[in-house]
Structure formats: structure tokens, C-alpha cells
């Protein structure tokens, strides 16, 4: 297992009216994050806040190239990014105990926070296809280049970890400084991982090791 401190490249925020970050996503250009009662976008180059969508946004956020998927209460909402309309909802696999959310190859992956699990589900029905166990509380989840990463936050410690999607075995770990929380995780498809924080309302960019 590779183990190193997380290299924090940049911090975005705080943003006006945002108290906590509950989920993070990336639409190919901009970073989106869930802040309770809305989804907010910012430009990762300039750090400038862009637009927001008024929709219940209590935990993880994902983007499939056309729609947002957003955890709210005990459901996953499918949202039209242009109109903000909720097009469909499916039950969340953890019945509301879910935290992270990501899209990969036609399926959704959902973190179940204190149960320390990651479920792969059918985005149409919410049916659980596979479950991976982690050893720590799961916050954000993301896929990049065939790698499954998830954020953890347990007690006072947070880290980002790459796990084997079949066995859940820990392959690599990036530690965040004590006191920094991770809520929400998304890769930009390249060498950056964006992670949200609840202790201070910021989104951090962390270098993804090669």
C-alpha cells in the first residue's frame, strides 16, 4: 500500500451563503458542489462562483455527461442541469445513510457513510449490483482511469484512499492534515481530485498521484 500526505494544490471558497459542502462533482469544465438546499458551480481556473440550482442537496453529487444525480433525504434525484427540474428519483441504497455519489460506465456508485460500504447501483431502478466494504466511514466516492477512490472522515481524521473495486482492499492512501474533513470527492479526469469540507466551507484540489 502506498501512503503519503495529501498534496493540497488549492482551496476554493468560502462562497457566499454556503455553510458546508456535502458533495462535489465535475461537469468537464466546472466544479459543482452540494450545499444543503442548492447545487453551486465555480470555475476551477479563476475560482469564481458561477451559477447555482435550487434543489435539495444533502450529500453526494454525480454527473453522467447529461444530468446531475443528487442525494437528498433518502432518495437520489436525477436533475436537468439547464432547468434544474427533477426528472426522476430512485431510492438511495442506504435509505438515507448515504454520503458519496459518482457515475461510472453506466452505473452509479454510492457511499454508505457509517456502514463503511460502497454500493454499485442501477441508475434506473436503484437496485444494488455490487457492494464493496471499506474499513472507514465513506464520504465521497469517485472513479478515474479505472481507479476507485473514496474519501473518509472518521473522528478527527480524514484521508483519500484508492481501493480495489472488487475486494475493497486498500491500495493507496493520502492523509489530510488533522482537523480537515472530507465530504464529497470528484476527479477532473486528470491529476486533480476535488474534495469538499464541512469544517470550513471550502473545496480543496488535491494532486492525484501517478
Amino acid at each position: 500500500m502506498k501512503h503519503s500526505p495529501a498534496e493540497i494544490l488549492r482551496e476554493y471558497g468560502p462562497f457566499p451563503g454556503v455553510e458546508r459542502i456535502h458533495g462535489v462533482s465535475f461537469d468537464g469544465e466546472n466544479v459543482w458542489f452540494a450545499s444543503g438546499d442548492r447545487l453551486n458551480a465555480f470555475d476551477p481556473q479563476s475560482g469564481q462562483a458561477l451559477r447555482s440550482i435550487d434543489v435539495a442537496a444533502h450529500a453526494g453529487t454525480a454527473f453522467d455527461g447529461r444530468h446531475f444525480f443528487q442525494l437528498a433525504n433518502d432518495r437520489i434525484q436525477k436533475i436537468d442541469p439547464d432547468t434544474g427540474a427533477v426528472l426522476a428519483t430512485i431510492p438511495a441504497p442506504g435509505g438515507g445513510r448515504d454520503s458519496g455519489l459518482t457515475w461510472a460506465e453506466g452505473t452509479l456508485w454510492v457511499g454508505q457513510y457509517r456502514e463503511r460500504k460502497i454500493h454499485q447501483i442501477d441508475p434506473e431502478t436503484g437496485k444494488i449490483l455490487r457492494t464493496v466494504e471499506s474499513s472507514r466511514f465513506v464520504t465521497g466516492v469517485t472513479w478515474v482511469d479505472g481507479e476507485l477512490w473514496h474519501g473518509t472522515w472518521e473522528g478527527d481524521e480524514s484521508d483519500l484512499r484508492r481501493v480495489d473495486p472488487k475486494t475493497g482492499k486498500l491500495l493507496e492512501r493520502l492523509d489530510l492534515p488533522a482537523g480537515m474533513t472530507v465530504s464529497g470527492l470528484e476527479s477532473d479526469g486528470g491529476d486533480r481530485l476535488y474534495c469538499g469540507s464541512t469544517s470550513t466551507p471550502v473545496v480543496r484540489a488535491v494532486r492525484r498521484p501517478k
Partner: protein
Amino acid sequence: MDSLITAAALALAAGDPLGALDRVALREDAPALALRGIAMAQLGDFDRAKLLLRRAARAFSPKEAVARARCVVAEAEIALVSRDLGWPAKALDAARTTLEKHGDRLNAAHAGHLKVRRLLLIGRLDEAEHVLAGLDPTPLPPAARAAHELAVAGIAMRRLRTRPARAALEWARNAARQAGIPGLMAEVATASLALETPAARLITQGTERPLLLEEVEALQASPALVVDAFRYTVRAGDRTVSLASRPVLFALARALAEAWPGDVSREDLVARAFGGKHADESHRARLRVEIGRLRAELAALADISATKRGFTLAPRQARAVMVLARPIEERHAAVLALLADGESWSSSALALALGTGQRSVQRALEPLAEAGKVQSFGHGRARRWMTPPVAGFTTTLLLPAPLPSS
């Protein structure tokens, strides 16, 4: 945090405890128990709230020290509001240290304010002042700021410093308005009322009038000889003689001061000091002894001379003699004075605050209840006492935030 916990916490923060309960009603995991506890407390079901918070604290893992500490602080606040003053203060101190160590400044400050309020209620002013001095109010959000200033005002009033009390209340009023919490605004208004309500009576030369706290404060600087029935002292200028442990001597001093410049008959003195109806020879002999003792105690301040029918007070330097008395005097005045805060008290809390036994408090409460001066609700250990007429038990809960905050 998971999705429903976030949703429930947002509902709580928006003042919707029922909405919060709705989302986590059937959940037994630690964060859900904590949220349910806080929601129940906001709904006024303190017993259930305490149980839920205790279960939550146990259910969080040892690693989740901050979450556990927040549960302890919430439980301490509920204990304080229900006047369960025997609640372990050490647990609150430990929680406060944990929160400070982990950078949760807001909840650490909240724990500090709870400690101050408890010390104030049990009359440990020095300690309360000391803890309060260690808390910086400037970075606090409005609700916490209001609580801080209320504590400052509470101490200043008990210390007879009305100007700082007024200033603190003004801060508290602004902060409570900014926080937009009606209960808190009402609490500030009630506290402010204490400055406009007679705090004492002044008896001099056979007349008496009510005094505001401000006037009591001004009296501290007066050159008069003051017999103070709050502290059981006699003072003139900067000389003070305490008769707190000598009730007979104080009763005599007070009777003489009330009659000044006139004298008091032996019969009256015997009645006031010993409670005897007729002054027989043995009473007269005892009176002579006690007057002798009082004369020795007050030697530097006043002389006591015999007159034809009794005794009279002659101050040495002071030009006037005054008696400072409680606004209403009756038996068990101390119990009533505590209940006058409008809160509900357990008899054990009253005993703790008065430094006496629970039995003697209960003996005081019974006749007061029969006279309709106090009322109780609840049974057994949960029984609480308060003065009528009080509309509800509106002490504002400013419970710790269930989610981490900046």
C-alpha cells in the same frame, strides 16, 4: 455526514424540530440519536432528550471525540435549563477541553457559558467571573454573544455594578435581535426588568421607600451608617462589621437602626431578638449581655446608650442611620428570592444554591405552597418548584450545532 442526517440538521437549524424528527425518527445510529435528542429538547421533552443524548454519546466511537463532547454539552444545557444543578460539572469541563483541542471554538465557548450560568445560579460569583473572563465574545455568533452578555450582566447586577450591567444588557438586546430568537429576546427583557424593579427597601427615621438596584449601588458610597439585611453587616464609610453568623446581634442592631434617632424599648428588643412575647427578668438579663456584645462589635462605628425605657444608637462619624432590607420580608425569603428568577427548580437544586439541606428546603417549600406563593409540578425526583404566575418555562436552549461549523 449522510444525506438524512444533513437534511435533519438543516431542518433543526431552520427551527423545524418536527421536520428533523421526521427524517431520523426510526434510526438508532449515533448521529441520529444525537439529532433526535436535540430536537426533543427543542420541543421541551427534556427527559427523553437526555436519554437520547446519553445513548448517542455512548454510540459514537471513541475516535469521534468531538461528536461525543457535543452530546455532553447538550445534556449539560438541558440539565441547566431544568435546574438539575447536581449534574456533573466535571463532564462539562472535559467536553469543553475536547472541543477546544479539536478547534470547535463555537461549541467550546457554549460549554464555557453553560459553566458560567451554572456557577451564577449556585451563587459562586468569583468562579463565574473567572471563567467568563477567559471567554472572548467578539468572534461569537449573535445567539452565543447574547448568552455571554447576559452572563456579564448577571454578575454585574449581583456585584451591584449597574452601569456595566446596563451596557451588557444593551449588547445582549442587540445580539438577541440579530439572532432573531424570540425566547432569547424575552430573556433579555426579563433580565432588564430587574434594573427597573425595586431591589431593596430603605428604612430610615421611621419611613421606608423602595430602592432600585442603581440606588442600592449609590448607597455603597454613602457616608451613612448602613445596617444591611442582605449581607448581615453594619457599615459606615469603609468600615464594615459582619454579623452574618450572629443573628441575635444583627436583629438588635437592625431594631436600633430602624428607630434611630429614637430609642427602642426593652420589650421590643426582646421580642425582635429572642422572639419572646413578654420581657421577664431572665430576658432582660440576656438582653444586657447581648447589648454588651453588640456594643463591643460596633465600637468603632457607633455607641449604644441606655435610655429610660431601653436603648438607642449613636453613630460616631455618620450623620444618618439607614437600614437596607429585602423588598419583601417573610420567612423563607431566600427560597423565594431564588424562585423569583422565574425558572423551575428542584428542591435539591435549591438546597445546593442555598448551601443547606434538602430537608430544610422542603420544610420551607411546604408552607409557601400552602400560602400559594410557590407551586410545584412533576413527581418524585422530577418534581420542580417555581413561583406562580409564570407563563411556561421559557428558558432559551442554544444547543450545540449538530453539524461541524466554521
